[in-house]
């Protein structure tokens, strides 16, 4: 089973865009994950007057309170990246299981799962997140759950579509004839045969998770308003564009490079998967 996933990824490495995406993603991921260790100042240290231009103690200048922009940039990616990755994993797992069950069990279970996806899909992801955060307030685990669950129906639709197509194929029918348990057929036979498209979906969902988590931060819904967070940094320094653009452009560029990177990787994997599909059809 591991084989089909790593193969789907390796094939995508033939495309230059996958490499470009990996480099961009890697650079920002290193900044986000190792940044907190490298920050020259604490995220809440006041190192100068507000909106001071770059130079001296603050290489990227200071923010609206006089905190060091570079230090907050190095600190503020961790929460965005970790939240987005966890939410993506949650959304993929829930969506894949729901889609497999719906597509393979059919009948009333399929009907129920599909109606539930209809309901969630009616809400733009950011609206769903805002509504669910209204009473509970912005807590980190809740943001992970909400962003993950807002992806799940989209992943479930894709998985269900592939399941119904694959279920009619010979190797599944022979496994059924040999009495293989349904769970083994779903996770041992069907799932590995969707590795390419699902891996591409994972990349796409990660891209959207990063955007969504950053947007929630940008709108001001963060667990700790004083903590460094790329989305929140953009919000709190909005007035800086005229006087000290780095306070706002540094996190904006970091998010932009990260999402462009993950999307390029996702597209490379998708192209590889589509190609593999065509080759299979041609040889069949």
């Amino acid at each position, binding site marked *: 089973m591991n084989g089909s996933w790593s193969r789907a990824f390796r094939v995508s490495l033939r495309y230059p*865009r996958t490499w470009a995406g990996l480099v961009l993603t890697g650079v920002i991921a290193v900044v986000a994950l190792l940044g907190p260790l490298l920050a020259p100042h604490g995220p809440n240290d006041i190192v100068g007057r507000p909106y001071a231009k770059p130079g001296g103690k603050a290489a990227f200048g200071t923010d609206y309170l006089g905190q060091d922009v570079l230090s907050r940039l190095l600190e503020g990616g961790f929460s965005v990246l970790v939240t987005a990755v966890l939410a993506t994993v949650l959304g993929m797992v829930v969506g894949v299981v729901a889609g497999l069950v719906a597509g393979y069990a059919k009948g009333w279970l399929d009907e129920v799962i599909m*109606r*539930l996806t*209809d*309901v*969630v*899909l*009616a*809400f*733009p*992801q*950011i*609206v769903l997140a*805002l*509504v*669910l*955060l*209204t*009473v*509970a*307030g912005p807590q980190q685990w809740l943001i992970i759950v909400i962003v993950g669950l807002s992806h799940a129906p989209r992943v479930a639709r894709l998985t269900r579509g592939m399941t119904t197509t694959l279920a009619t194929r010979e190797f599944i029918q022979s496994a059924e004839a040999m009495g293989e348990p349904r769970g083994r057929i779903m996770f041992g036979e069907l799932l590995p045969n969707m590795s390419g498209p699902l891996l591409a979906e994972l990349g796409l969902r990660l*891209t959207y998770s*990063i*955007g*969504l988590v*950053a*947007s929630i931060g*940008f*709108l*001001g*819904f963060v667990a700790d308003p004083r903590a460094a967070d790329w989305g929140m940094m*953009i919000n709190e320094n909005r007035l800086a*564009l*005229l006087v000290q*653009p780095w306070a*706002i*452009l540094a996190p*904006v560029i970091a*998010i*932009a490079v990260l*999402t*462009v990177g*993950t*999307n*390029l990787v996702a*597209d490379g994997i998708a192209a590889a998967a589509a190609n593999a599909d065509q080759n299979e059809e041609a040889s069949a």
Partner: protein
Amino acid sequence: MSRSAPEPGRAWTKWLLRRLGLAALTLWLISIVVFLATNALGDPARAILGRSATPERLAALQARLHMDQSIVERYFSWLGGVFTGDLGESLTGGGSVGALIGPRIANSAVLVLIAAVVIIPVAGFLAIVAARRHGKRTDSLIQVIMLAVAALPEFVIGILLVALLSTTVFRILPSVSLSAGGPPWTNVQAMVLPVLTLVLAVVPYVSRILRASLIEVLESDYVEMARLKGLPEGLAVRRHALANAVVPAIQVMALQLAWLAGGIVVVENVFQYQGIGMTLVDAVRNRDLPVVQALALLIAAVYVVVNLIADVLTILVTPRLRTAVR
């Protein structure tokens, strides 16, 4: 087509009834989700007043929110209100929710409409250029740019545009949608950046779908036949490809509206545009539950209704599908 269902008219009616029933069911479930999300995830009264609330004020607000009733009773009285057009009172602004959000809905509708009108020709043009150069350099260049733009969150696009056109590089456009009285869209200059942000956020998706369906048609047998008969390429595109793009166009317009509905929430906040997106975020921040409920319900309902219309139209313009429905 000759072997259609024995009674196509009846099959079509049955399909339509089922589709309408599903839409109604979805709308009902949406109302439950909205209500539970704003009532069951904690004590609304406590959330509104915060930790420092005195017991007296808490009790007063709980009474005002009818917290003494069961959650089922409260749901049905809220739903009854929605049906009779009574969306309750705003908890922060005073006044009815309807009066508060009415003008905001109009403002957002104008923004979405202008963006949609710009998106269609831009996306169509890019799709035609890319499809006609399918596999060549121009096509891949357009695709890579679209891929990069599609990856960017709306607020990142918005802020980069503000930095480019309003504050840092050039200073030619206002960065916030303030107008002296009157609706925000009366200030034409201030509309440019919000519209441009929405256009950039949505065009990649629309043009990608249109390009794929155009390529499918252009590589089909009958267009190949038309080419072999000596039809010029431009005419082949116009006569066959565009005629066959009606169905994808209907679906894309429905999807586009869904993307724009999400997009305005963030974009209105970037530009301080007084629409439902900004109202929703303010209401969430102030825990103004009746406003949050009304706007969430509205946005989801628009999605369901638009998709219903798109599906019905798709069946109506496709004779093949109309007779095939069971």
